């Protein structure tokens, strides 16, 4: 990884070394097309013996246990556990609302995606990175093998902001074509005016494992405005005239809490992972400490 800094400005070498010790573990074991370090339930063409079964017409004759045939005079097939790779779909919110915070929420999300992609590739998983706003805006085809990390880093580095957020449309677009079930990681502020439940329901019906990382800037957590302000939505351009007051701020705080607890409750109900963070929290701490606390990495 000596050339990491030369390729990407998002991560330094020290940071990447720390990530090598972390493993991404999916809450479920999911089958993959290619062999990886995750044991899948699917029996196939691996090297580790699993069981026997009688030969039926059409089976590959190379799996026939000829020694057993000589002893038993029966055609018996040897069955091996197939070592499957884990598809990881990393969704990075690239809507205009991510262009806030210090560092920007967008940068923060890209770091999350890069870290997870790196660990996924280390584990020989198949990693896809998708930038989305009002649908899939850009993506990189699923990659496998640690050498692919540079392509992903470059992709993340070139990713740009645009448009409004629509998670439901994004998932419908992306998973509309046949995709393997896998771990869906969404790094976003989850400020979707259309609501999150239709999108989450869609993922749930697709039987994906989901981990949501909600990233907010401090000004979203504790907004500070003058007494009278015209708030303009960065995505839609709509505006709201506000006469700021302690009660209004309290109402906003309450609404934000409801929004966050709504996501958290959904995730908990279906065994999904969820973590929320602020951009003011150092990214390394987030990865090493907050992910550990939330049992994301073991």
């Amino acid at each position: 990884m000596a050339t990491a800094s030369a390729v990407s400005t998002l991560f330094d070498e020290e940071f990447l070394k720390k990530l090598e010790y972390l493993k991404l573990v999916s809450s479920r074991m999911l089958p993959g097309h290619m062999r990886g370090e995750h044991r899948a339930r699917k029996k196939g063409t691996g090297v580790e013996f699993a069981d026997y079964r009688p030969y039926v017409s059409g089976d590959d004759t190379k799996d026939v246990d000829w020694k057993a045939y000589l002893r038993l005079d029966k055609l018996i097939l040897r069955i091996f556990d197939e070592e499957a790779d884990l598809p990881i779909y990393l969704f990075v919110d690239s809507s205009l609302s991510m262009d806030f915070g210090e560092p920007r929420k967008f940068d923060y999300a890209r770091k999350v995606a890069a870290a997870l992609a790196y660990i996924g590739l280390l584990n020989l998983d198949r990693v896809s990175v998708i930038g989305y706003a009002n649908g899939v805006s850009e993506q990189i085809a699923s990659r496998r093998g640690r050498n692919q990390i540079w392509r992903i880093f470059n992709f993340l580095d070139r990713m740009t902001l645009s448009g409004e957020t629509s998670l439901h449309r994004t998932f419908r677009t992306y998973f509309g074509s046949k995709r393997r079930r896998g771990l869906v990681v969404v790094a976003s502020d989850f400020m979707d005016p259309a609501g999150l439940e239709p999108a989450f329901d869609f993922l749930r019906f697709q039987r994906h494992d989901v981990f949501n990382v909600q990233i907010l800037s401090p000004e979203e957590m504790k907004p500070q405005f003058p007494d009278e302000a015209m708030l303009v939505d960065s995505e839609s351009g709509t505006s709201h005239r506000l006469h700021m007051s302690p009660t209004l701020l309290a109402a906003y705080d309450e609404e934000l809490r409801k929004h966050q607890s709504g996501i958290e409750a959904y995730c908990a109900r279906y065994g999904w992972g969820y973590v929320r963070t602020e951009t003011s929290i150092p990214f390394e701490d987030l990865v090493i400490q907050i992910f550990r606390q939330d049992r994301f990495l073991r």
Partner: protein
Amino acid sequence: MSFGALAGPIVALLLGLTACVIVFLYWLRPPPQRIVVPSTFLWHRVLKERKRRSDFWRWLVSLLVALAVGLALAAALAKPEIEALSGKARRIVVVVDDSPTMGASTPSGETRFERAIGIARDLLMEGSASSEFLVTDTAGRLAGTEFGSRRTALERLDGLRLSLHEAAAFPAGDPSLYSDPETEVFFITDGVVVREAPSRVRVISVFEPVDNVGVTAFDLRPVPAEPNRFEAFLEISNQSSEPKRVALRIDGVGGEAMERAVPLSPRQVLGESVELDRFSAGPVRVLIDAPGDGFELDNVAYAYLGSPKLARVVLVSAGSDTLETLLRLDPRVSLELRAPGDSATELPPDLYIFDRVAPEKPPAAPALLIRPGAAAWLPAPTGQELTKLSLAGTAREHPLMEHVALDDVAVETAALVSRGTNRVVAGSDEEPLILVSETPLRFAMLTFALEDSNFPFQSSFPVFLANAVSWLASTEVVASSLSTVAVPVASGVVRSIEGEDVPSRTSGGRTSFSPEGPGLYSVRGEGGTLMVSANLLSPRITAVNASVLEGAEPGRIPGESARTAGKGELWVGLVLFALALLLLEWWTYHRRLTV
């Protein structure tokens, strides 16, 4: 509605401009700051759940409040007046009687004067803001007849103090002042000293009867037959409606005291002489105390026993048997003889007599000079000689000439001197024969020698000489009322008997001051010391119940069934209203009720 400070059109213009400026400023209010946020998604939910107030109504209410505040303040500047609220504009003259009898107490404990001030203050609070007021008094202390604002009138009233002058009269002022039908004139008095007022004046009585016993006369005199014995003549008047037992006390400077109780029936005036044989020369005080006395000013009186019992007289003469014999025969005189040119450095005597000798400098004690000759400090001789003169034109009221008959006195020759500022007590101003001077040094001067007249052979000469010793050797005492005292002392320093300096003025060789109450005052100047006994000693003032308003209801304003309560000024109300609105706006703003 009228305006006290500005004309109606100007007020309308002011109000219009104020409203325009406020509305314009509201239109110019900067738009709210545009702030781009990641998402208004949550804010939209918050605002949807909150009961929204219309921005327009909020703006309108805010504008109306600002207009109300601005217009109220602008209107306050114009001092508006609404007759129903602030009363009508009036011209009110308040004359306060500040004569000494107004110092008498009333049953409520306050003095008549204090009650008069209270009534005057109430009168000044009446009328609208544009009303004009004039406060004046009966002692003439508040000069001027110019009307002014309520504030000015109240300030004048606050500065008014009880006068100790017996002389008091309703102020003459501008005659039209009291005849103008638009002017209301109120006179607050007890009706004792000032008993008359012009017909249109509405007299408000503060008179209520009060018990009073007072000293109306106190004088110290030598007994005619024995000039070195003194007696006090004392007069005490009971002006109460009931008999009084008066405690009388006379104190002397040497600790001498005489006490006795004097019963007095109502309206009784007791006059008697009291021997003062035991009293030393100096201050004498009489003090009376009667139960329930309501007027203190006449309870004390002061006098000064001026003549020493034995006067040291230095006779400077080349030889005068007549003078020497007569002076030795006077039991009040301790005589010393001195030849002309014999300068002595001992303590100055009580009296010098210079016979045909003129000291170059004024002597250190009063002097009787008999044809003294020329000296710079004496009336200048013209060089002419007068012959065959008689002593006609005698000032018999002068102490020097008291009981001195000069009808048969003839003068053979006399020096003609210029009278100057001195007083002629015998002869004429053009041909003075006997002159006296009070300042800077007290002296008497005969322009003729005794040998050049038959005066020494007249029976009046010993009397004249005795008068000269009495007048010149005694401390001069001036009896005065409590009005302004002017004494013939140049550059005098006035001190009370307690030793406190009293403010005084000097002009034209006289020192004047106003006594702060009954007492003894010393006036020390270039020509020696003069004592002033200032006392009330006025039967007219002691009679505090002799009022023309006896029977009148105290405090009642003639012609009005009830006093109208003082009304505030509308502009003050407008300012308070504006402040209240600002407070309300501030309170609601900070509680986010109007935002």
